[in-house]
């Protein structure tokens, strides 16, 4: 059942003359998790805000759950749920009071509210804190409460802006398991993240860079875009390594990652000896060189280092 629930076409938004979102187009099918991936300032938050109807766009068309968000932002609001990046609940209200507030705003009956809040709070291990003031919750619990409030009604589309930033791994797992349950029920999810490892959990990815879309497709398709192999060179000083390798033949991109340098090369059989030779000549200690599976981050770095189709200006 291919049914586009979100259709964005030519979306642009300027802030102070500079594009925050630049001619962005993508679609999301029902029951899909689309990850908006990119570093800070890539336009993830702006895109989600426009889709949620809280920020007007400058141009383009946006259809969410069948509603024209650009011209009638209010019509979409009862059919979606939006959780902003920063905790947006009332710290001087208790967990239950916050839930009740959002349930009432979305006209959820008391019976459904009780049932759903019970399930959701259980799923994220928050049942013991129902009477606690939201301001006294930990960062991770605030996020989870935000999600509970966002899901107290059944949205067709769920928009989550960096819901896992600053959240402990256990809470993060709980959050993702809730998302998979929702998707199973036919909810469409758009989730932004600055964590590339998390992007692998999404069905499809939209890679954003400086407001424009670099790529939109499944993580596997994304990795297929890499015309080479990722090599990991262990080193205590990956930045010096990278400097030494700049300009090497067949080197597509290089990225320092902790105590290793990730490089993408066109042909590992041929290039590994060449790289060894080059590093030896530069007098750099050589660690182990291992081929590894490409990560989303590797592809992103490859694309932003000049290999992606640039914008047409």
């Amino acid at each position, binding site marked *: 059942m291919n049914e586009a629930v979100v259709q964005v076409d030519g979306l642009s938004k300027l802030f102070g003359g500079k594009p925050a979102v630049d001619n962005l187009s993508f679609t999301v099918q029902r029951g899909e998790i689309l990850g908006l991936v990119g570093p800070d300032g890539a336009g993830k938050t702006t895109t989600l805000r426009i889709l949620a109807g809280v920020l007007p766009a400058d141009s383009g068309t946006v259809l969410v759950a069948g509603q024209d968000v650009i011209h009638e932002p209010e019509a979409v609001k009862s059919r979606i749920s939006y*959780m902003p990046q920063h905790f*947006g609940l009332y710290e001087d209200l208790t967990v239950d009071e916050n839930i*009740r*507030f959002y349930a*009432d705003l979305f*006209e959820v009956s008391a019976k459904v509210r009780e049932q759903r809040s019970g399930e959701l709070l259980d799923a994220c291990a928050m049942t013991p804190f129902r009477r606690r003031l939201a301001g006294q919750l930990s960062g991770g619990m605030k996020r989870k409460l*935000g999600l509970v409030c966002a899901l107290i009604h059944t949205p067709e589309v769920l928009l989550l802006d960096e819901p896992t930033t600053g959240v402990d791994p256990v809470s993060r797992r709980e959050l993702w398991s809730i998302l998979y349950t929702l998707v199973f029920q036919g909810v469409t999810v758009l989730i932004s993240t600055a964590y590339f490892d998390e992007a692998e959990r999404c069905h499809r990815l939209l890679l954003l860079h400086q407001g424009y879309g670099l790529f939109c497709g499944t993580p596997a398709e994304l990795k297929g875009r890499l015309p080479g192999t990722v090599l990991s060179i262990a080193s205590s000083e990956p930045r010096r390594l990278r400097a030494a390798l700049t300009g090497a033949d067949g080197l597509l991109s290089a990225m320092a990652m902790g105590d290793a340098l990730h490089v993408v090369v066109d042909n590992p059989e041929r290039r590994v000896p060449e790289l060894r030779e080059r590093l030896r000549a530069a007098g750099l200690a050589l660690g182990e060189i291992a081929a590894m599976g490409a990560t989303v981050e590797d592809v992103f770095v490859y694309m932003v280092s000049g290999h992606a189709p640039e914008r047409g200006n």
Partner: protein
Amino acid sequence: MNLRRTVAIGRKEFIQVRRDPRSFMIAVLLPLIQILLLGYGARLDAEHIPVYVYDQEGSQNSQALLKRFQASRYFDVVKVVNNYPALARAIDADQCKLGVVIPWDFSERLSDAHHTEVQALVDGTDDNSAQLAIGYAQAVVSAYSSDIQLKWFATQGVSQQAVQPLSVDYRTWFNEELDSKNFIIPGTVAMVMALMGALLSSLTIAREWERGTMEQLIATPATATEIMVGKLVPYLIIGLGDAGLCTAFAVGWFGVPFRGSFGTMLFVTGLFLIVILGIGYMISVATKSQLGASQYALLVTLLPTSMLSGFAFPIDQMPAPIRAITYIVYSRYYVSALKAIFLAGSGIRDLAPEIVAMVVYAGVIGFFATRAFRKSLQ
């Protein structure tokens, strides 16, 4: 407008006021402090005005006159001096507000010419007190002089009935004791409403922006009107409660008469609150900062209510241009209605002009307030 969503916003706002110590103080403590301070402090009567006396003659007649000053509740004869410089120094040093000088030929001229003068030196730095002091002093002196006249006629064998001097007998309606507290305190209810209403309502929208809860709120289906009504109705209820509290204090503590109906008082208070809350709300929408909003709100509500509403300074004594301005000061209609309800027992029909003015104001402010807030981050 969806009632359920509006009630939800109202309930949330109510809980927040209850849990926020600052808002709670504004809602409950501030009105009490205000009515006590204004009730005790803002009295315009002058009583026990300190008086220095320079009695140049020192006769039986002059002493009789001074006794009358002493006997009056408006004056306290603090000291008798024997030269002008001492009197002048006392006024300069603020030891007395009034100096009475009785000339050396007081008795002589009284018996010969039947006309004599007494000099009064007044500290004019406080114009209001000075005028009151002169007025009271004139009253004391003229009472004394009419007694003298009667006595003189009696010695001439004229019967007292025949020469009973014509006297004007004032009867002040509605505030029989001409007690300024009766005049001031009903107006303080307006001051309380203006201060409390403006402060609380100016915080509502700004608080959502400052605490970062606005983005989530505008992503819900709640309409701008529901948000406004839901946010302001709790303050309307709190305001009406405060008005009841202030009335109870005015009557029970300060002994101000309350001759009208409580319902009429609540009705006009509700109209006034709609105007005040609407103004505070619009300022809150425009400034997005709690501190800035509360300061602007005080400027446009409390200032005109204290200066131009007739609360303490009678409008008909203002210069014509200022008097013209008071017609656009919405609090003037409320203060005038409050005084009429408290002191004259006026009902809705008597207050028709005031009520019409306030309904017009409430309508205009309400119209703009519902359009002030846009559900957008931009």
